[in-house]
């Protein structure tokens, strides 16, 4: 994540127009969570009507950014372009902090330029620190990966008869794995598939052997 540019800090100053700290807080969270492509729509949602008055803005807004829109009261005086800049700047700032793994207030404060509004700087730093670990988890959860295991269920059956042999008592295991495709590809609607697999006792023993070896290697790595 590239560092935040000076021009973007200037855009951040428009947060001074926010009516409440909670509005700023919510905007920060939305900007962090939104992917770069979603910033435009986010700016639109938070400032719809492109010059419409507050009442029309209220009617046009749907969804979670409604309080933000009402709060920012997009009036004819404020065109959407600076709002988009603000949203991008917040996105870049929050993402940068998470990327660098900054955890101390001093580190975050030092990101801001000298002449930045003092109280706003402190407020933003406070908000970022509150959210940093949740954001870090969110980043890790949405990183690219192979399809992920969500859940597993199993059942043991006893086969009593078949076309090749009419009487037997062979236990077998059915394993159902719930797998979620790569989150980055699916966006907001992850595809979950269920795969049912049958294992004989021999296969299970071999598998456990393999899993045991993994466990031993993991402990060896952990103990180093």
């Amino acid at each position, binding site marked *: 994540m590239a560092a935040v540019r000076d021009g973007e800090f200037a855009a951040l100053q428009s947060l001074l127009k926010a009516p409440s700290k909670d509005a700023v807080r919510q905007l920060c969270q939305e900007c962090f969570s939104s992917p770069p492509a979603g910033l435009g729509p986010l700016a639109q949602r938070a400032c719809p009507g492109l010059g419409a008055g507050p009442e029309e803005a209220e009617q046009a807004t749907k969804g979670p950014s409604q309080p933000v829109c009402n709060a920012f009261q997009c009036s004819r005086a404020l065109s959407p372009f600076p709002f988009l800049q603000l949203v991008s700047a917040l996105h870049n700032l929050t993402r940068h902090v998470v990327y660098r793994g900054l955890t101390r207030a001093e580190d975050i404060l030092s990101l801001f330029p000298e002449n930045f509004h003092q109280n706003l700087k402190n407020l933003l730093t406070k908000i970022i620190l509150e959210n940093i670990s949740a954001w870090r988890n969110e*980043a890790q959860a949405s990183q690219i990966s192979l399809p992920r295991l969500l859940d597993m269920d199993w059942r043991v059956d006893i086969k009593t008869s078949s076309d090749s042999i009419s009487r037997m008592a062979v236990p077998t295991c*059915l394993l159902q794995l719930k797998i979620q495709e790569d989150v980055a590809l699916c966006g907001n609607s992850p595809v979950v598939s269920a795969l049912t697999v049958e294992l004989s006792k021999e296969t299970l023993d071999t598998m456990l052997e393999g899993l045991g070896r993994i466990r031993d290697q993991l402990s060896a790595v952990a103990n180093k």
Partner: protein
Amino acid sequence: MLRLRRAPAPGPGGAGGAAAAAMGLLNFTRDPVPEAVSGDMHNLNQLSAQQFSALTEILFRFLIEPKEQVERFLTQLSDFATMNKISLGPLKNIVKSILLVPNGALKRNLSSEQVRADFIALGLSEEKASYFAEQWKVNSPTLTRLAVGQTLMINQLVDMEWKFGVTAGSSELEKVGSIFLQLKLVIKKGSQMENVYIELTLPQFYSFLHEMERVKTSLESFS
């Protein structure tokens, strides 16, 4: 199990179409036996003990590995035919008739006693029937295991490969340091193999291992 009723003319000379109807109930099958079988048994009785034993050996070797060894089986049969001056065509028919019994016996988990009794009912001499039944007893554990192995399995797990490592960084997080585990499962779907790739976190792995150990305990208690 159906109890066997002895056929009226079990001796070597008692072959003929009528004998088939008079054979009574057999252990290895409920269906009527083809007429040709009694004739084939009669021909078998003409073989010497040595020849019969050699033929039996060829048959059991085929039964134990049927899929891969059809070529080998046919070659051995034709060698046997040449060596003993028997024509291959009739020999093949005889072999087809003989194989009816072990195939049925396998399906119905018959004992060697029942196999012997069935051969006698079909017209084979007591000596040869007893010999075959002995061979059946010796080979049946392997044959049973094979039959069980051929039983239908749904999406059978055939192989598992794995690797684990550490995620050092990502485009969102400069330093990560988290462990990931990747599994590749090879699954037999119908006649094709399919590879499934999954990623697990460390806690998921331990939970997976724990569940699999529970499955093993469960399977073992039923074996």
